[in-house]
């Protein structure tokens, strides 16, 4: 990495910073806002967001999306992924994302199946 060639814009160029230090503080503000939103939603649990969307509460989807947004900024700006070559970025991110999605799919699918077996089968666990 060329040492002083930081890319200084976040949110697709919406916010541009003058120096790397400034960008770090900007990202901190962003992450703090996201965490605050999560905590407020987690405590208040608005009724509007408790409906089911794609098999999960809408609120849970919001939490997961906000978490991925946070993970993106930590990786891209704190870990300097934004300044690495495209190939290194892909080697790291695509590998991890693919394997993790696979793992999540297969385990959650299985968990749901076991739940159904307990529920509708002959196994009793409410004594």
């Amino acid at each position: 990495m060329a040492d002083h060639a930081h890319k200084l814009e976040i949110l697709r160029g919406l916010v541009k910073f003058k120096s790397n230090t400034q960008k770090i503080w900007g990202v901190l503000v962003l992450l703090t806002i996201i965490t605050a939103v999560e905590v407020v939603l987690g405590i208040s649990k608005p009724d509007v967001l408790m409906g089911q969307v794609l098999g999960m509460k809408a609120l849970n989807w919001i939490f997961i999306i906000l978490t991925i947004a946070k993970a993106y900024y930590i990786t891209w700006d704190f870990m300097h992924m934004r300044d690495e070559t495209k190939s290194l970025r892909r080697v790291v991110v695509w590998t991890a994302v693919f394997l993790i999605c696979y793992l999540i799919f297969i385990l959650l699918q299985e968990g749901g199946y076991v739940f159904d077996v307990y529920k509708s089968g002959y196994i009793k666990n409410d004594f």
Partner: protein
Amino acid sequence: MDNTVVSTGTEGKTWGGGNKPLNSSYGKMMMWFFIVSDALTFSGFLAAYGFSRFKFIDSWPIADEVFTHIPFFHGNYPMIYVAFMTFVLIMSSVTMVLAVDAGHEMKKAKVTFYMFLTIIGGAIFVGSQAWEWATFIQGDYGAVQTKGGNILQFVNADDGHRVALRDFVVVDELKERTNHERKNGLWFQSEGTLPTYTVEEVIQGMEAHDNVLIRTQIINEEGEKTVLSRGASLKLLKDNGKAVVEGANLHVNEYGSPLFADFFFFITGFHGFHVFSGVVINIIIFFNVIIGTYERRKNYEMVEKVGLYWHFVDLVWVFVFTFFYLV
């Protein structure tokens, strides 16, 4: 990097290992690959948590009702302390990246200062996690476990708030059961700590207090735990009550499914161990900065590498926070 790698005379030759693949140094790339594999380990744990949760989706503990304490204050404050811990860790990530930035500019004093703040932040986080563990292990309200392994908790019929065992159960002073220790009876045989109360004492306490009801693990349609009627509560307790549970360990916990406590200890423990080792590595690098190792090397890349690890620990916590405390 030239000062840290022995010159082999093959610089720039593709098959001589001389040039840098992906335009990044060997150490940094290996740190990235380590992070990928470690990320897969953590996702394995979290996905296993998801598996168990989906398996018991209608009876899993509600995190908001488990993690409600903050140090030095009484009362019910769900999530506040974990949010604070998250903020501490993000903040120490910021000081770390500021140290890396100062390293690029070869400012030794600034690197030292920011590394120091990072270590402090890490120490606060590990300390908070230890406190969180202690609170979780100690428990608060107490519960009764049934023969089937389910947890029965107690609520006040008037306001629906939880009732602790100590508020309505009285210890029978004449009971003969005492803790069996190594020193008496069979030599070198001992048993775990006995709970403060026996199931019979809980039944008596419940009969004496008309306003105590039982709350089961089952989550109803409103997303809350089911509260039984007075008659059903007493019947369930008398028929199925088997053991009193106070706090949590790897076998039982008063919050609900034992798996919840197992995963709590395992995932936050594994993460806490990462933070701890991160702090140790940070301290080593901190002293290297102070004695001028990187100043002589004319390169602070080592700070950047340990920084990658430190940010990764933060990254994992963001996911643990979501999947353990929020969702």
